[in-house]
């Protein structure tokens, strides 16, 4: 067990041990980051000692690593002014009335149900989807699938957890991975046994609560040989949070012949810095697909990657970024070809509007062993006005022979000819523009489950009308 740090347990020990529904909270949330806070987090969660140590080690790494300066401007983040761990009970302090009017308006216009919008806005901690979740759980358990939150997984499946946690993205990988490892909380844990195909997409939404939508969520997915799973996180409705930093880590292991698809639709409120590390290891003939949509936030830096570890492994990234006023979406993907006959594609679509900025940043690496491998990168940027901006930063690093590497990039504006054509059929300018933008991201949208696709199209419409944040 971890050494218990001195904290004021006061009279609230009941909550700590889970005997009662808490009426008042025990853990006095403090801003800032130091070993004491990290120890407290681990102690609160009653974690095994190895995790406490790993967190502390990660904190050291976080402190030593310089801020990355190659991407978006992160200098304004004040790490000392952040709450690194809040219990759900602390988070419910907001009331509906305190919400910014634009967020409320968006919920209205998207037709988000009452219970759901309260959750999204952080007004209530639990979204009432328990019922759906429980019937699903029964089915999954029968197949040996584990689908739970990451904290519970550490408690309930300690061996499995320890075997994989931090193996795909070690704390030293980058500054924000180190930060996440030091203070992580919540996220999803999925294990799919050999040969099991999970037919319906697993959605974080089923078991959403304030904790797993937290700032430092940690997700770990293990697809055993020949299995399949599709995991979906996020939703199109904007998620309102006063936390300014969201720094998640997602680790995925896709074993021989398995396939994993990970779909993200994220629409953080525009005060958020969204700095996420997502990486998968794909083994022989395995397939990893990242489908990644980023709409909100002030700054997003996210480059889902796949390490193609064994022959026949395949990696895909399909991403969409929308940057409106004051937003910078710095996104892309990385494909690391380690073994022969591996293939990868990255398709990136970005839209910039009202001075928004999108960047494509990609890295294709082919190690000497990656003979006969193929990679194709396509990035298309759509600029909706003259103030907006888009850049591409493709890095290729090829040490293998007999490989194929393709790269295509386009930057375009909504064409006058297309607008005229649609308008000449009676369609208004704003509707025509929305149609063209939705058409532009259609290669992405058509990969989404229908309800998400419909929501995304509606959201683009709101963004285009300028009525969103």
């Amino acid at each position, binding site marked *: 067990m971890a050494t218990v740090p001195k904290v004021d347990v006061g009279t609230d020990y009941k909550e700590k041990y889970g005997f009662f529904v808490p009426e008042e909270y025990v853990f006095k949330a403090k801003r800032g980051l130091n070993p004491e806070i990290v120890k407290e987090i681990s102690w609160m969660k009653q974690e095994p000692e190895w995790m406490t140590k790993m967190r502390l080690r990660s904190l050291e790494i976080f402190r030593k690593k310089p801020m990355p300066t190659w991407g978006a401007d992160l200098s304004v983040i004040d790490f000392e002014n952040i709450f690194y761990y809040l219990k759900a009970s602390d988070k419910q302090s907001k009331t509906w009335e305190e919400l910014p009017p634009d967020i409320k308006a968006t919920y209205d216009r998207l037709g988000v149900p009452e219970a759901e919008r309260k959750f999204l806005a952080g007004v209530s901690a639990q979204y009432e989807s328990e019922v759906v979740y429980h019937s699903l759980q029964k089915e999954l358990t029968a197949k040996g699938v584990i689908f739970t939150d990451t904290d519970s997984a550490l408690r309930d499946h300690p061996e499995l957890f320890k075997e994989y946690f931090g193996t795909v993205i070690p704390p030293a990988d980058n500054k924000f991975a180190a930060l996440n490892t030091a203070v992580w909380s919540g996220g999803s844990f999925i294990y799919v046994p050999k040969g099991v195909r999970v037919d319906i997409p697993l959605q974080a939404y089923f078991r959403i609560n304030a904790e797993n939508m937290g700032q430092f969520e940690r997700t770990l997915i293990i697809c055993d040989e020949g299995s399949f799973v599709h995991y979906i996180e996020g939703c199109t409705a904007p998620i309102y949070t006063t936390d300014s930093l969201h720094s998640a880590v997602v680790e995925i292991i896709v074993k021989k012949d398995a396939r994993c698809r990970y779909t993200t639709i994220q629409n953080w409120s525009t005060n958020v810095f969204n700095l996420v590390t997502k990486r998968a290891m794909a083994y022989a003939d395995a397939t990893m697909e990242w489908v990644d949509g980023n709409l909100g936030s002030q700054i997003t830096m996210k480059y889902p990657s796949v390490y193609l570890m064994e022959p026949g492994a395949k990696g895909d990234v399909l991403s969409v970024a929308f940057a409106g006023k004051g937003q910078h979406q710095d996104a892309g993907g990385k494909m690391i070809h380690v073994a022969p006959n591996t293939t990868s594609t990255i398709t990136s679509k970005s839209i910039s509007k009202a001075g928004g900025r999108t960047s494509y940043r990609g890295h294709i690496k082919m190690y000497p062993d990656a003979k006969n491998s193929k990679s194709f990168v396509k990035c298309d940027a759509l600029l909706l006005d003259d103030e907006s901006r888009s850049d591409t930063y493709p890095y290729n690093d090829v040490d293998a022979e007999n490989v194929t590497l393709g790269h295509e990039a386009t930057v375009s504006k909504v064409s006058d000819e297309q607008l*005229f054509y649609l308008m000449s059929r009676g369609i208004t*300018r704003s509707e*025509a523009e929305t*149609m063209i933008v939705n*058409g532009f991201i259609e290669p992405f949208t058509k990969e989404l489950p229908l309800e998400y696709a419909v929501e995304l199209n509606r959201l683009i419409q709101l963004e285009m009308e300028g009525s969103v944040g």
Partner: protein
Amino acid sequence: MADFEIKDLRASVEGKEILKGVTLAINKGEVHAVMGPNGSGKSTLSHTLMGHPGYTVDGGEVIFKGQNVLALEPDERARLGMFLALQYPVVVPGISMTNFLRTALNAKRGYDGKDKSKQVTPKEFRSLLKSELEVLHMDDSFLPRYINDGFSGGEKKRAEILQMAILKPEIAILDETDSGLDIDSIKFVADAVNRMRGPDLGVLIITHYTRILQFIKPDFVHVLVDGKFVLSGGPEIADRLEKTGYSEWAEADEPAVLKPEEVA
């Protein structure tokens, strides 16, 4: 006062004067053909009438339903009852023809996302599509395809006429709908247009060649050379052009019939 009046219309493209005073009165129920050699300003006329932003109006007016439509946006003109079948239909990726047709029809009917009674019902839309597709000898496999994306020349032109049939305009401008079509496609297109002919529709059919006029008989023919009408009259003018081409207007010495090798 005719239903649709073009009065002394002058227009330029990128500072270059193209239309030098075009006057034309069209009544519903009539079919007018505008014929002219390449570069005479036919497409400039069609685009200016529909409000393409690349064409600058330098003078004149176009009166339809008591309004000068030159002051309106293209979508407003369309909702007022105008339609343009483009010479070069535009590709719009990612939007299916079905979605496009439905959105356009809803827009035409004044559905703005609120008053559901104005919205076309799925059933009505399906049956409407079905009958018009038949007339044009198109199968519904093209409906899920993106707007004009990968369409052959003939498919594009037929798709234009399909849009016209669905939107039911009162004034339709067909800009070289016949060019690039094989004879079967011309017949299908002509059938569809002829079916729509009637007291509620005025047609301005723009063409370089006389061929389509064998299938869609015009009531009036106007010859456009260098941005002006040089001759107007009845269908006999088409016959005259058939023989002499545009040679009467020396600077536009082009035949008005296709050479045998150009006939597909």
